[in-house]
């Protein structure tokens, strides 16, 4: 007798092994867990607010802060509000971030290029710099510089550099061009406006220089004849700036800017005039720049090494000078590798500036920490988180725009 054939019927995947179901169960479970945890935290916070009378809310922002801020670049009085004080602290952080990134990038590029130098000694010095400063905590470096500056003489017997600049435990003072005339901008007439007018003419001069450079470069590429774009562009910019300066001098009878030399004044020798970088900012900048430059140097080195050797050989074969190879062939290509990690170093420098509190610079975090004594910590935490997030976004945006500009276009 023929055996009845076994019929296999497809029953479908069992529910507990169905991929979609497993995935969604996992997700729902994890989401519920996270939501439950967060809810538990919030209920505890709510309880604490109720039982222990913990303050909350944002009303404090319009109250008077009544505490001095050690250093500020925009006018600030203790009678100003909490909100404005936070803004002052945020500008302090932003100034360190921008100046620090500019200096650290310059130093980092120099060290990174030096590390790849064909000169053995220079490469070793750059390597030692990177290996040491990258591997020591920033806090130690900051404290080291802090105590160095602290051990400098006080202002009344300050060190004098080159007879014109001063360095003491209050900071560094250097000669600086300051606008002449002064007076109220609205009623002071031309004398008060002259510095701003000249700044405007300088901006026009720089823009004109770039236009000249661009036109001449294009002509050089099209005709193949040397048109000296860099020299001509610089000359155009200097010429227009000088014309503006002379014109203002003739009309106004006085130069728009004059070099102001710092000088000790009074019994305690407070330094007046010129431009003074106060000790806190000075130490923070030195520490941050030296530390971050070590990381940027490694990024620059990796970027330069990522350019294929054939590119350099071809550039040399075409007759470019070593500097020309670096400037026109290596760097534009290396930049594509350098910029993304460089952006994250900018973020790091901004976040590391929060160590300023340890050396007496009033940046965002240290001011916020002081504020927690008289204002609700919960609200402050939300505000400081938002501020740092905004700064990170600003760096990312600027960096990514630049990255897009230098990236491969088309094909």
């Amino acid at each position, binding site marked *: 007798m023929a055996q009845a054939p076994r019929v296999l019927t497809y029953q479908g995947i069992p529910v507990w092994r169905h991929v979609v179901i497993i*995935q969604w169960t*996992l*997700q*729902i479970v*994890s*989401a519920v867990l*996270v939501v439950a945890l967060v809810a538990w*935290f*919030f209920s*505890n*916070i709510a*309880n*604490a607010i109720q*039982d*222990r009378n*913990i303050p909350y809310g944002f009303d404090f922002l319009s109250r008077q802060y009544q505490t001095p801020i050690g250093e500020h670049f925009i006018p600030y009085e203790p009678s100003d509000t909490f909100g404005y004080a936070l803004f002052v602290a945020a500008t302090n952080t932003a100034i360190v971030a921008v100046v620090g990134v500019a200096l650290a990038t310059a130093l980092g590029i120099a060290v990174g290029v030096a590390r790849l*130098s*064909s*000169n*053995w*000694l*220079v490469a070793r*010095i750059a390597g030692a710099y990177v*290996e*040491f400063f990258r*591997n*020591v*905590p*920033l*806090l*130690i*470096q900051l*404290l*080291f510089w802090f*105590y*160095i500056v*602290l*051990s400098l003489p006080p202002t009344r017997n300050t060190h004098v550099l080159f007879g014109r600049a001063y360095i003491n435990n209050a900071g560094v003072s250097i000669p600086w061009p300051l606008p002449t005339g002064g007076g109220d901008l609205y009623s002071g007439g031309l004398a008060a406006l002259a510095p701003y007018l000249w700044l405007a003419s300088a901006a026009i001069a720089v823009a004109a220089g770039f236009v000249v450079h661009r036109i001449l470069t294009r002509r050089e590429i099209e005709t193949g004849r040397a048109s000296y774009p860099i020299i001509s562009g610089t000359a155009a910019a200097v010429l227009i700036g000088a014309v503006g300066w002379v014109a203002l001098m003739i009309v106004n009878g006085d130069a728009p800017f004059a070099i102001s030399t710092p000088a000790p004044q009074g019994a305690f020798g407070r330094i007046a005039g010129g431009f003074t970088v106060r000790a806190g900012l000075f130490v923070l900048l030195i520490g941050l720049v030296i530390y971050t430059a070590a990381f940027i140097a490694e990024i620059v080195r990796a970027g330069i090494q990522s350019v294929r050797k054939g590119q350099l050989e071809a550039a040399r074969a075409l007759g470019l000078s070593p500097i020309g190879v670096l400037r026109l062939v290596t760097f534009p290509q290396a930049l594509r590798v350098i910029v993304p990690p460089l952006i994250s170093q900018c*973020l790091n420098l901004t*976040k*590391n500036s*929060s*160590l300023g*509190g*340890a050396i007496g610079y009033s940046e965002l*975090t240290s001011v*916020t*920490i002081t504020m*927690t004594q008289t204002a609700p*910590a*919960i609200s402050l*935490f939300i505000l*400081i*988180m938002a501020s*740092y*997030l905004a700064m*990170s976004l600003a760096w990312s945006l600027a960096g990514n725009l630049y990255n897009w500009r230098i990236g491969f276009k088309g094909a």
Partner: protein
Amino acid sequence: MAQTVNAPTLPPPPLSAGALGWARENLFGSRLSGALTLVSAAAIAVGLWFSLAWIFFSADWEVIVKLGGRFVIGQYNAETSCPGQNCFWRPQAGLLMATALLGVFWAITASVSVKRAAFAVALTSAAFAFLPYSLNEMGWDVRLLLLANVPALGAGWAIGRHTPLNTPSRAIIASVGAFLLTLLLLRGGFLGLEPVVVEKWGGLMLNILLALTGIVFSFPLGVGLALGRRSNLPVLKLLCVFFIEVMRGMPLITLLFMSQVLVPLAFPENFPLNSVTRAAIVIILFSAAYMAENVRGGLQSLHPGQAQASRALGLAAWQTTLFISLPQAIRNVIPALANQFIALFKDTSLVYIIAMLDIVQIGRAFIQGNTEYLLHARELFIFIAVVFWVFTYAMSYFSKRLETHLGVGQR
């Protein structure tokens, strides 16, 4: 018949071989290179002259002698933290276990770098027994326990060679056990051991303990976050992205401070969570976010064919992740992970913000308390910087060895 005689082999021109040739190529390759060599050699000579003169004649290293053992354990052995008992032996027992475990790993792996590390740790510890302190300041028990590191290394090696503790996985389990045992010992409170509250732990010991805890916990968490961020489950992905970006957007110091102010509010009153545990958790979460981005980079660098082939061979999704993707991804990002571990170790110096006395803060508090040493703060911070540098440099050395061992970039 003309006879041919080989011309005698001439020596190379004197300026192209040997030390002179090397110098000519690497130090005086071009006019610019020669000038750079002369300038940097002069700078090094002047720098060395002044720093050696400072180190041996003007610097006063007394502050380091004064702090002595406090660098290593902080206030742990002080009468206020460990009354009526000598508690120095407990961290020393931890050190002995670490040395013995290094011996075990040396026997198991037979690797040169592990051997070097083991000998470095054992011999350096033993060398500290010969410090010229009087017996009152540094008892014979302390010295004996330091000397015991050498036999401990031998014992560890014998254990690794002759007992069942002879596979890497068992040794790792033993290490975790030894770590937990050390924590228990330090905490005390059993077998007549005086309990020492965690807030009294300090010095380099605290830095190392925080760093070890951070590395052990943040690594798996970071891998999990990276997988979550790359998964195609929208809810999970969103949670991971949110966590990573918030953590990366804030300075660690702000998070640490807020962990002391805010986190206690988020838990019920009297929840058993001391400030050090909170700090450790914040460090773990912070580091995990960065770790996740590194691992994600490694996962992205894998060719999709790897996972496809593995699925085609019939491996389940979790097996593909665990045995195919992750091992390759992590191997690819060893340098980045090592840098992250180094950063974590450096970041442990930030616990000053929550009033913990780590090695940096011990020094700083000493200077602030004894202003007569104010001018010698630089000696102190140079010393602490060198201590940190030795550890971080060892970490980067090991990561390089591991990279070579695993053949990164060669397969």
